[in-house]
């Protein structure tokens, strides 16, 4: 497919050739956005051949995600791509909240609550850089068959496989797959072809997203305004990106002329209102964004599995869109790996459906609450909101109520059927079953790097046996270099916890036995 006229091109890619032979592929990923690329990279690194179909033959420019969370970086770290993202990205730790005409912030906050982890709390990076780095890593994988300019136009689920119709450069072909991962974004063609639901609400709210280039240096901080003089009654956000690009985000209200709002003559007074009358800047990209909060009822439909924006959409407050989608990829791929290897039943996918929906619901809940705080719907809710903001100036208690977006954090699944509950009577601090591992320094490196994407028994000197399929990481071997890791998992001498390949804790014991480890492993593989 040629360039879509309305989408700006950041980097042209070679269109993949149309295949001449037909064969059945274990997995086809539809969509080459950040989620599809993460799914494909993870699968390829497990050694599976994977076909990736992307509708366009370019990486798009324009304004999309900029904030990537520590959890996303931990996942991309497992896939070997976090380092270049962080090197290119902008790290910020301070947020300031302004209200009304005051030039002093109502309060400011420090972002990273947990120190001594390899990855920062957040980085800001244009989505096209993230996609480009994921793609570069994927190209290095022998099993990856990447086809840009290949547009999926039809789909049939048959016994034991899925057939896709694909259009590319004027020709068409059919492709068969054991599993199709639909990462084809919010307007998902696959979802439409399967006539599946996409429930939720579209908020009557528009935002002007102005990415501009500024040469002068400014503090690396996230600034948020409630009701500023330059955008009365609305909110605004200022955030740094690499290459001296800044994201300015202006709430517009509803019933706006979207076309007129991206006119430079409309944008310029807003930019100068925010940054001062003398600011020198060059526009990068202006767009108007109307957001929605919705999700599919189910993400798993037999052999077609939805991940990312195709499955769920949230408001941008909290940076939960792409980060939520990367969490889907992380949750899905190790399960698919085990199924393809015949080490887990296909029903394990049902736990992807459960866990990914838990994450999506938490993201939707959080972003809906942020929206309600940002845009009070009634005089009473406005009074509450304004009372919070005016109290926050002098009273620390009011500051936690201020909601300018609750930044994406990983979701725990203590209720998941894959989790083994703690032994009754044992008391524990530390990362609980159903929660993701917390990084910590380990020797001269980092704990998460040592865990990798496999089942690990993380212990502090357990001397007994453990079942095959589990690798041991013994913190007792590390001497003083493991003190913080031991503390974060509350591993008393002899204690151990079992980690899933996505580095979530599956079970833990003060006194592990081979039998108990084996039972927890079976449970985590969906065998019981």
């Amino acid at each position, binding site marked *: 497919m040629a360039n879509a006229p309305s989408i700006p091109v950041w980097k042209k890619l070679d269109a993949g050739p149309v295949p001449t032979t037909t064969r059945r592929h274990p997995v086809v990923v539809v969509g080459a956005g950040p989620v599809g690329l993460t799914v494909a990279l993870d699968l390829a690194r497990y050694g599976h051949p994977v076909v990736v179909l992307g509708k366009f033959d370019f990486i798009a420019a324009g304004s999309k995600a900029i904030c990537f969370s520590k959890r996303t970086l931990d996942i991309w770290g497992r896939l070997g791509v976090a380092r270049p993202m962080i090197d290119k990205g902008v790290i910020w730790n301070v947020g300031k909240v302004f209200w009304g005409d005051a030039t002093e912030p109502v309060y400011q906050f420090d972002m990273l609550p947990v120190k001594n982890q390899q990855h920062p709390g957040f980085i800001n990076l244009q989505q096209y850089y993230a996609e480009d780095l994921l793609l570069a890593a994927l190209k290095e994988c022998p099993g990856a068959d990447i086809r840009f300019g290949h547009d999926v136009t039809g789909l049939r689920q048959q016994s034991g496989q899925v057939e896709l119709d694909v259009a590319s450069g004027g020709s068409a072909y059919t492709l068969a797959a054991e599993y199709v991962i639909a990462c084809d974004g919010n307007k998902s063609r696959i979802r439409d072809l399967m006539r599946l639901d996409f429930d939720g609400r579209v908020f009557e709210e528009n935002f002007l997203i102005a990415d501009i280039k500024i040469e002068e240096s400014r503090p690396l901080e996230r600034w948020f305004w409630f009701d500023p003089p330059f955008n009365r009654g609305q909110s605004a956000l200022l955030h740094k990106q690499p290459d001296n690009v800044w994201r300015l985000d202006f709430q517009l209200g509803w019933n706006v002329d979207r076309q007129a709002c991206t006119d430079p003559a409309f944008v310029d007074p807003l930019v100068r209102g925010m940054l001062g009358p003398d600011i020198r800047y060059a526009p990068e990209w202006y767009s108007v964004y109307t957001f929605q909060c919705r999700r599919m009822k189910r993400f798993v439909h037999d052999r077609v599995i939805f991940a990312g924006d195709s499955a769920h959409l949230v408001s941008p407050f909290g940076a939960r869109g792409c980060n939520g989608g990367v969490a889907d990829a992380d949750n899905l791929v190790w399960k698919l790996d085990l199924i393809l290897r015949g080490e887990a039943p296909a029903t394990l996918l049902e736990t992807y459906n459960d866990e990914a929906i838990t994450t999506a619901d938490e993201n939707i809940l959080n972003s809906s609450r942020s929206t309600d705080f940002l845009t009070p719907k009634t005089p*009473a809710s406005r*009074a509450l909101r*304004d009372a919070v903001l*005016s*109290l926050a100036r002098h009273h620390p208690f009011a500051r936690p*109520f201020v909601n300018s977006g609750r930044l994406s954090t990983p979701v725990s699944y203590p209720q998941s059927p894959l989790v083994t509950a703690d032994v009754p009577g044992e008391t524990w601090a530390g990362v609980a079953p159903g929660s993701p591992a917390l990084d910590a320094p380990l020797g001269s490196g980092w704990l998460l790097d040592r865990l990798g994407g496999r089942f690990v028994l993380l212990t502090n000197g357990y001397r007994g046996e453990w079942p095959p399929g589990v690798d041991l990481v013994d913190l007792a071997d590390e001497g003083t270099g493991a003190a913080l890791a031991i503390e974060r998992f509350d591993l008393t001498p002899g204690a151990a916890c079992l980690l899933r390949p996505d580095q979530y804790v599956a079970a833990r014991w003060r006194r592990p036995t081979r039998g108990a480890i084996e039972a927890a492993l079976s449970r985590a593989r969906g065998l019981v």
Partner: protein
Amino acid sequence: MTDALKTEPNILRPDEVYARLVGLHEGLSDEESHRASAALVLLLANHIGDEAVIFAAIAAARRQLRPGT
């Protein structure tokens, strides 16, 4: 739920406290009054801290206007 919330008399000088509650709004516009009430609720809610008590109070406040919701 309501068990958590004290609904028996608990204030020594009710007239004094009531007068102060009314006094909060003296000279305020309707909008300011709304905000003053909201601020008072937030301050007291934080002081109480116990979610069960706060939720029971919210339920009781709503019930006297719309029973059953």
